[in-house]
Each structure stands twice: as C-alpha cells, then as structure tokens.
C-alpha cells in the first residue's frame, strides 16, 4: 500500500530539467547557484504559505503547551531497503514530537551535502521528504543548504527540527511511571536496523527485510484521544534499541522493570539475521515502532486498540514496572532463566563466531 503510493508520488514529481547533474561547492555558496538549485523545484516541491515567503525564518503563532525537538541524520547508506535518509529525517523528528504527546506541525530542514551528490539522488530524497511530510501532516517552513568539500561529509547529512502542540489529554512524563504499569511495544523489533545492516558494504546479505520507517503521530494521537493520561510514557527506541530505552527508564525512575523474552515480537527473517550476525534484537535500532508505558488497568484495552492500526498487528505487552530489583531491567529468557539487561556499550559489532 505504502510502496505503491510512493511510486505514484515519484511519477507525479518528475525531476526538473537542469543544466547541472552533480551538486558542487557553488550550490552551497548562497549565490546564484544556490538560488538555481532551490528554484529548480525544491521550493515548489515543498511549497506552503510559510515557506513560500522565503524569509530568513518562519513566523507563526504557537498556542498553549508546545513540544520542540531536533534530530540529525547521518546514515550510511543513504538509500536502503524500504526508504532513504529523506523520509527518515522527517519521520524521526515527527516521531520524537509524537513521543512528547504532541501533534507535530512545523519542521525546519537543513542539508549538509558533500559535493558530488547527484541531482538525481537529491531529487529522490526531496520527493521522499515531500511524501513523508504529507503522510505525517506537517509542513517544512524553513530550511538551509550547505555544501562541503568531497571527503568532508558522507553524501548528505540532514537535520530536522520541529514543533507541535501538545495533545490536550496528554501528560507524558517519566515521573508518572509507577509500579504496576505495563510496557507495550507497537510492533516487531529490530526491523530497521537489520534492513540497514543488510546493505552495508562488506556485510551484505540477501533478504527481503525492509525498513519500517514511518510516522507514528496519527496513531499516537488516537491513542491519546482514548487513553489520555493513562499513557504515562512514550519512547522511540531508535539507536541502542529497546534494551537501552528500558535501562534508562529503570535508572531514572529507580524502579524495576521485568520483561519476558517470549513476548518480545521479532519478525522471523529479522530474528534469523540477528542469529547469523550475532546481534541481540533488543539492542538493534528501530524506526517505525514505539514503546508505551501505560497504567496497568488499561493495558489490555490499549493493546486491543493499538492492534487495529496498520503496522501495529504485532504489538505486545512485553513486561511491566515492578517493585523488585530497583533500577534494573530483568529479562526472563525463553527457557525461564533470569538475567539482567544492561545498556549497550559502544556500537554493536558483529561477532567472529
């Protein structure tokens, strides 16, 4: 469904005819070439009233409680199965705002481009950005483009910063987490991280695993409409994975967390890839999922509701907040043994054997 929409979008946004194929230092100079690059269709593609003013910044009203978040994207490779750096950059900040219980509205978009990036690649990234913005219902209202010498970057880095109004029923705060709360993941773990790993130079392996990058704000809004302040905490388990997020929560709340291996949803192919690579899905990066810590009394209803959304069919209650072992995450293994789950040290590196 999503893939076919993507193709349609790309067909309806053909790349403009240009007198350059490759982005060079001059395109970041702020002068004629920069204008030519932006006029080539960037502004048209992302057009909205605020952006079209082309002012130094965007001017708008903010009402009430507001969430504000930023994220930078330096991923390699920039194109990967199931997406590219463009939509990742939009979804990333949109989801960070959603995790604050906010309705994302306005985003800034900053590019740092390494000279030599082809216009075709840049256009493809821009079209994905437009698509992701439309899906999430957000607008790019200000932006910046810089070009650095070859070797000083890695094709393209993107920064997005966003603001959004906090949902009136939301009260997301780590201090709300209490004993008896349940921990729910919205879908399968580790899919994005393994999709990226499968195309990394030197580690390529054949698979049909695609990144699950997507916006989560609409789902979160509906959940907030229904469950309001029974949702105590929302977290986006990107780098460091679910294990790192849970250990941070246990540390900061000084409460214990119990999780059960057999309830943790992982796609079979992803699970197989993790086995081969010697990686633990609990530590692999995610994009299109979130963790919700909810009042234990509404946990089952929350799970039923979340499963009605697309891409949340594998949602599961993976554990709960407990009085025992404060500041620790304890996992019950598949065979019933118990062990402590700790934070990831450095990057997760594939093992020898």
């Amino acid at each position, binding site marked *: 469904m999503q893939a076919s929409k993507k193709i349609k979008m790309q067909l309806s946004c053909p790349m403009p005819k240009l007198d350059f194929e490759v982005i060079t230092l001059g395109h970041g100079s702020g002068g004629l070439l920069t204008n030519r690059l932006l006029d080539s269709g960037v502004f048209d593609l992302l057009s909205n009233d605020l952006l079209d003013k082309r002012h130094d910044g965007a001017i708008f009203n903010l009402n009430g409680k507001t969430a504000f978040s930023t994220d930078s994207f330096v991923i390699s490779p920039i194109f990967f199965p199931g997406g590219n750096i463009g939509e990742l950059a939009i979804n990333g900040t949109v989801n960070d705002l959603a995790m604050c219980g906010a309705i994302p509205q306005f985003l800034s978009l900053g590019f740092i481009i390494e000279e030599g990036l082809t216009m075709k690649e840049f256009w493809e990234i821009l079209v994905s950005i437009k698509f992701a913005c439309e899906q999430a219902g957000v607008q790019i209202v200000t932006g910046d483009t810089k070009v650095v010498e070859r070797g000083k970057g890695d094709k393209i880095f993107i920064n997005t910063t966003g603001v959004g109004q906090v949902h009136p029923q939301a009260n997301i705060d780590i201090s709300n987490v209490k004993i008896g709360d349940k921990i729910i993941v919205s879908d399968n773990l580790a899919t994005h991280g393994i999709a990226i790993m499968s195309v990394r130079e030197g580690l390529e392996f054949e698979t049909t695993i695609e990144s699950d990058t997507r916006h989560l704000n609409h789902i979160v809004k509906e959940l907030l409409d229904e469950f309001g302040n029974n949702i105590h905490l929302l977290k986006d388990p990107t780098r460091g994975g679910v294990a790192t997020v849970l250990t941070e929560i246990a540390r900061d709340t000084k409460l214990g967390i119990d999780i059960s291996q*057999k309830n943790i949803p992982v796609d079979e192919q992803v699970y197989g890839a993790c*086995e081969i690579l010697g990686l633990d899905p609990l530590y692999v990066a995610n994009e299109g999922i979130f963790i919700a810590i909810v009042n234990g009394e509404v946990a089952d209803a929350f799970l039923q509701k979340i499963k009605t959304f697309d891409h949340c069919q594998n949602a599961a209650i993976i554990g709960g907040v407990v009085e025992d072992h404060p500041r620790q995450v304890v996992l019950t293994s598949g*065979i*019933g*043994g118990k062990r402590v789950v700790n934070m990831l040290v450095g990057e997760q*590196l594939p093992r*020898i*054997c």
Partner: protein
Amino acid sequence: MKFLTEYRNPEVAQRYLEEIKKTVTRSWTIMEVCGGQTHSLVKNGILNMLPKEINMVHGPGCPVCVTPLNLIDKAVYLAEEKNVILCSYGDMLRVPGSEKSLLEAKANGADIRILYSPLEAVKIAEQIPEKQVVFFAVGFETTAPANALSVVHANRLGLKNYSILASHVLVPPAIEALMSDDECHIEGFLAAGHVCTIMGTQEYYPLVEKYKVPIVITGFEPVDILQGILMTVQQLENGEAKLENQYARMVRENGNPKAIETIYEVFDVTDRMWRGMDVIPKSGYQVKKQYETFDARKKFSVNIPEAPENKECIAGAIMKGIKKPFECPNFGTKCKPENPLGAPMVSSEGACAAYYHFSDMVNKIEEIEA
C-alpha cells in the same frame, strides 16, 4: 525456525534441568571451553537455574580474548600504514592494544573495514590493486578453513596485494595445558561444538585417556548446553571418563574433511602465545612457507616490542577457571567493557564481559559509587 527454536524449548530445557537435579549427588566443576557457550549460559540465565552443586567455570575459548596484545599492536601498526586496508571481523575492533584499539585507529583515519568473510577481503584486493589488503585472521579451528581458503583463492587469482595476519588458536592443546596445570581442578569439559564440526572428534580421545576426564562435545543453544551438562554429570556420577557427542546433528567423527584439507594446505601447527595464559606448545596455526607471500608477518617488517599486560588483571586465573569474574577486585569498577584491563572483558564472549553484561553487578556498583 527449524533447528533453533527446538533447542530453545522451555519444556525440554526444564526436563533436562530436572534430570540434572536428580542425577547430581555432590559438587562438580565443569568447564565450558567455548566463549559462545559462556555467552549462551549467561544470556539464557542458565547459571542461576542449575543446582548449586554444578560449578560452571568458563574456559579460554574466546578468540578475541586470547589474541595476544602484541598482535593487536601489529594490526594497529599495519592499519595505520598509508597504503594498507586492514579488514577484520567486527568484535576485534574494540580490543585494546597497548596504546590503542583498531576502533581508535579507525577514528584517527586508518582504513579499517569490518567484514564477515575473508573472501570479501580478497574481493577488495582485486578491486583496489594499488593498496595492500591485510585480513586479520583470528579465531579457533572454526574460522581457519575460510581464512585458508582466502589465501588459496588469492593465490589462484595471482594477487600480489593480499595477505593475512594469522593468529589461529587450537582447542585440544588448551585443554591439555589446563589439565596439566596443578592449580586447575576441572572435572569435566563441554568441548566446543563448532570447532569439532570442522575438526571431528579424534583429537579428544587421547585427552580423555590421559587425564581420565569426561569430555562432551556440546552445542550452543540452551537445550544443547543443558543436555551436555547432564551427560557430563552422568559420567562423573558413574565414575566414567568418556568422549561423548551431544552435538551429533553437526559433528561427525571425521569432521569436515574438505575444510581440514584446506587448513593444512595453507597452515602448519606452531607454538602460540595465548593472551592471559602463556605460550602453549603446538596450539596455533601459522602460514606455511610456500604461501609466505600471503603472510603479513613476513610481508611487512613489523617489529613492535612486547608490551606488558596489565598486572591488575587476573585473566589467567579466570580463563583457567580458578577464579570467577566477580572475585576480581577490579571487576565492574576499574575494569569494564568500555575500558577493559584485560582479555576476558573485551569481547561479549569473554567470561568477564558476559558476566558484566548480563549480571546485576553494574547497578550494584553504581549504587555503591553513588
């Protein structure tokens, strides 16, 4: 998943546990040789499920941990050479050398690439003929065939820019060294299933004979390990010392003859220094003379002086099973995975790192420090 989920079945695991509890009448010290088994023991929480009579000690079977400091220094030195691309398995990168790790060398600009197969390194050598490509060939008998094959392959292609920095270590001489050490009190072994998949079972009969010690070739999944422990305990309780094969779905008496043939085409046996232990006679592979143009030790004149190991590290006692990681005063305080004092803390398969990652020590220590 076939051949995986079956060996993680909680009911079957429970049955083996019950059987172990019924069988055991006194305390026994059993060593799992392989780091993969140590990892599985702690990751699945098996150590806490076993009856207290079973004392599991964790052997030297982590290739990353036992690779000598001096060799890491050599790898770092080579990686920092301008025309060298150093290729390595991922978990070697974090291992500290005397001055820095490969990861730090990479951050300083060295061209270091993480690969899964040495054949990928041969491909890079083919693609970039102006650079010297060195593969850091560490591991037990398990990784030796692929590393040897890369040399055969590079030779066939006539490549002049490919070599391996080999530091292979072998399991049977390590068991021999442990058993002839007076401080060691190991009463039974779980031998490494993957090593035996390559090498077969023959090499272990003389050890069983000589030291009258049960050896059970064991796999890596929780059910494998519990069954391996049960088989060892049954022998011990019956006063037997036999070689048994729990991992029969993979391990044949003669191993993998093609793989063994490839190993001996390229390597011959040599004395080898084990980090944390010492030089063990005939415990490693080196590149044969006829392939010396593919031997990075011969190709590049790298004379790095031996740096002393950190004296505070009790790696030897850990790897011989004399002490447990938490019996070391530096465990989790001065010595952590992000800043290891010695070998067993560096790879997730090292005994100390495995305990650190999966034990409650960290939080306890943080509490004490706070």
